[in-house]
């Protein structure tokens, strides 16, 4: 019987994929979101985590920037 799983397909570059895998590893077991790691640049994740991943990436980017005070 063919099995179909709903989720989100992620396509990105290798460093960003490693970042997402590391993010997944740092979460407790109940919160892990990666269903399948397909290859170096693709993965399949839970349907509800798209916004969470985007905001974590944005925060990561902001942590590495500095805005001069006015």
């Amino acid at each position, binding site marked *: 019987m063919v099995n179909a799983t709903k989720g*989100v397909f992620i396509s990105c570059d290798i460093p960003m994929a490693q970042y997402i895998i590391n993010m997944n590893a740092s979460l407790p077991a109940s919160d892990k979101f990666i269903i399948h790691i397909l290859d170096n640049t693709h993965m399949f994740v839970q349907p509800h985590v798209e916004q969470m991943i985007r905001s974590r990436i944005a925060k990561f*980017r902001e942590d590495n920037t500095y805005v001069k005070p006015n």
Partner: protein
Amino acid sequence: MPEVRIIAKNFMDMVASMPAMKLDKLYENGFICEAILRSLLPLAKKYVIQMLHIDVSVAAKLLEEWVLPGGVSKHRVAIDRLVQLRVFLEAVDRKNEKTYKVNPTFQRSLQKLLVQGGTLPRESMPSNITVRLPTLENLEAYALEQWECFLLQLISPSQVEKPLNISSSLMKVFQRRILSYRDKEAPKLTESGFQFLLMDTNAQLWYIIREYISNSEDRGVDAADLISFMLELSFHDIGEAYSVDTLTSFQRTIINDLADLGLVKIQQGRKGSWFIPTKLATNLSMSLADSSSRKQGFVVVETNFRVYAYSTSKLHCEILRLFSRVEYQLPNLIVGAITKESLYSAFENGITAEQIITFLQQNAHPRVAERIPSVPENVTEQIRLWEADLNRVEMTDAYYYDEFPSRDVFEGACDCAREWNGLLWEDSKKMHMVVKTEVHQYVRDYLRRQK
């Protein structure tokens, strides 16, 4: 009427999209007919003048004989335009052949205007009453200043020192595609809004007027009356004073709105008030293609990402603030820097790197405009790279398929997903694949048929 619905690019397109009865009513005004005639392509103009005193239908074949063989496509464009505007009425005669006849109302109005001459519904006021009219230069400066004040209120309401009289509901009509509103946040410029700011003045003006006219029915105003009055206004002389007393109360309301936009200037005297059309008003009956003049540039971008804008305009400052960090705002100079953080703020609002680069190039100061490139390459490339950085991760709603019973079923399912352009990933060895959510239904139906 043409079957194709026209997307209005100028006033005449808007006229052409009006229903037949309203058009015929519009053509009772000779000046409207003259404005229509002016807007036509040269060949179409010739046809109107040539047919102006012919009361009967003329066969389409006869018209085609007036054109050299090489001009058939121009002929067709001209005829189509005349039919769209209902200047020519199309019919079929007893021999089942196509004929054209000049719209009787249009014909009568234009004949009367050309033969007898016409006077405007109002004449300019004598100069002993309207003392101290502004000069043409002052009037043009006033028009552009007023228009810029309107734009500033449009895109950045908190920056306006003296708000205009345009009602807030009308302002929201203008803003609805330019600004995006989110809960508890200040409104932000959208991609369309930034595109709007990149347009030249005439194109911007046309967009606003089009929204004004399109929204008129909601305000209980007949669009035909509004178009009629505006076209009539474009025949008034720039710089001449016309008494407000000659206007209906409906027209007075429009004049007040147009004054806020800079199309007319209203002055008060001891014995009444008058309005003075500006250059913006007379542009209303022109096609956009006719006005190709462009504003002088004011921006210098240096290789160290510093931006210097030689401008006294608060609007320019607000535009630069959208994508750069403004550090000093001097009376005639704005100093800023293009930074990653300021660009991210712009990208999040939907403004694209290409739009920003185009803005900087089109508004390059004359001293740097002749340089190749006018904006340093390291700056343009970096802007593009920072935008690409935001899009490093692509996410697509999808379904993951595995546990296929056989190679044939797997291959068939892959082909099915490919046909629907929905195959995102596959592993032939393990017989796994990922398809877009939209395609899931088709693949499932395919698999059901395999049982």
